[in-house]
């Protein structure tokens, strides 16, 4: 086929122009409009809470005047409309949350780091099964984890009462056990990634210089994986502090953590005081994120 040279060039030209137009529109859609929309989507609800926590009235669409009334209420021990929700109770539930997150983070960090070492450095039958087992808490929906533990603890309690006549109460213990069960995986996966990245020469050098395994671990391996261990611990702590579903099913009656308390508040007594509480919690989480970023910055500077 012989195409007239001029027409061919014009055709090519218009094709190029079409391509450039598609490119411009695509760029604008993909790299400008969608990210702006996504950021607005992520932040608008939070900004609305923040702004209207200072509103004089109950409205969340019209600012009638600035006031610290809702914050004053919190400090005057009044949160909800009924007598059921007081600041003292909220602080108590927050203490419970911190206690549970603290213990479960400690236990899961210790045994999670141990299992990461076993998986990277160890050699034993069933290692691959253990590896698969670690992904369970990530692929089993939380609701299933929650109800299965509820069933487990209630059958255990029934069986124990029949055997010994004693009653097992659900509460701190059962919640901590459950939180450790899902936290181990997060710690182990983070620490393992760090271990895999680590240069094994340092450990070999220590052994060549006569250090035993114990000494090698504490003097060489542990300092090198410490940022990973801390990152894993922080992750476990946050997830435990934020967990609602598993806690909901493993706590006993009348035992509240902060998310359980907040859930009750949202369902039974949604007042603008919640906006003020949320703002305070947001400030607290920002501080935690700051700490975590500082840790990550330190991690980036450690030697490989």
């Amino acid at each position, binding site marked *: 086929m012989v195409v007239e040279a001029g027409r061919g060039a014009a055709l090519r030209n218009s094709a190029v122009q079409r391509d450039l137009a598609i490119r411009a529109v695509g760029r604008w859609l993909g790299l400008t409009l969608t*990210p702006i929309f*996504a950021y607005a*989507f992520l932040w608008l609800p939070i900004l609305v809470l923040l702004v209207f926590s200072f509103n004089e009235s109950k409205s*969340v669409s019209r600012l009638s005047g600035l006031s610290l009334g809702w914050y004053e209420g919190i400090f005057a021990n009044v949160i909800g409309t009924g007598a059921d929700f007081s600041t003292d109770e909220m602080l108590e539930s927050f203490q419970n949350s911190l206690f549970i997150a603290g213990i479960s983070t400690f236990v899961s960090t210790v045994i999670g780091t141990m*299992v990461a070492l076993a998986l990277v450095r160890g050699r034993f039958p069933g290692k691959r099964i253990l590896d698969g087992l670690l992904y369970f808490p990530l692929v089993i929906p939380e609701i299933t984890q929650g109800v299965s533990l509820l069933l487990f603890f209630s059958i255990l309690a029934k069986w124990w009462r029949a055997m010994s006549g004693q009653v097992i109460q659900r509460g701190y213990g059962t919640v901590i056990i459950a939180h450790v069960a899902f936290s181990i995986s997060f710690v182990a996966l983070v620490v393992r990634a760090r271990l895999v990245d680590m240069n094994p020469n340092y450990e*070999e050098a220590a052994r060549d210089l006569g250090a035993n395994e114990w000494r090698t671990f504490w003097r060489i391996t542990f300092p090198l994986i410490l940022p990973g261990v801390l990152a894993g611990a922080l992750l476990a702590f946050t997830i435990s502090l934020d967990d609602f579903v598993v806690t909901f099913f493993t706590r006993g009656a009348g035992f509240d953590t902060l998310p359980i308390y907040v859930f009750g508040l949202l369902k039974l007594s949604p007042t603008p005081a919640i906006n003020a509480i949320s703002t305070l919690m947001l400030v607290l989480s920002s501080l935690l994120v700051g700490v975590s*970023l500082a840790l990550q910055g330190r991690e980036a500077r450690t030697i490989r």
Partner: protein
Amino acid sequence: MRGERAERQPWQGLWLATPTLFWLLVFFVLPLLLVAVVSFMTRAQDAGGMLPFTLQHYERTLGIFSPILWRSLRIAALTTLLCLMMGYPLAFFISTRRSTVVRSLCLFLVILPFWTNFLIRTYAMRTLLANEGTINGILLDLGLLLQPLRLVDNQFGVLIGMVYGFLPFMVLPIYASVERFDFRYVDAAHDLGANDWRAFWRVVLPLTMPGVLAGSALVFIPSVGAYVTPVLMGGVRGLLIGNLIARQFGGSGNMPLGSAMSVVMMSVVLGIALLYWLIQRFTAIADGR
């Protein structure tokens, strides 16, 4: 040297794994097995299970409760799709910022909401969308609406709430894989005559697929079993399978029925996880890894 030691101790490192093995077997696997067993039992007076074994709970789950199951899967799939459509460009945008400070700031702006309490975040979205909420309030004040739009207490509310709650789970894995992507491949594709569109579908997307798959799994799994978001955003009309399961384990529930529902839901999720694993295997082989 390490090989030598390994030969000497065939069980090396097992003691390090024992506590985790114990914990996961007793407090994770055993309870799941109990759920599987109880799902075949008859409901007892105290809502627990008793003999004889029966299949009636599976019949009910796949029979009269199947619309709720389908609704959960549909909303979870839609949530994943919307998160992907928003999360991919966002992750791409963040990882292509040249200045490290801007990049960190952009990432920080995604992570911070993620660190805020999940319930509070969901409630914040509700504040925005509710009948007496910000959007409806402003539109009514401006006279653009005569009646508030129903944006919550239905499936739409649940969908928006879940996209809002899980979006960071999508952005972070994709960000990790786009950040590792070598943009010289795009130049190479252009040199070989591909336009942007083609270069994206044939080069960028396949090479960032691991992030897309990981993000999709991290969004889809919690969406299928969601409990909190449907309660806060969906009202009675937005209930999902997670709420139905939870109800069976409450006061006058039916634990065997709830167990059967859990088993069905878990099978679906594990089936999809298996598919994900197979795809990953397949793409790894295709890449010659």
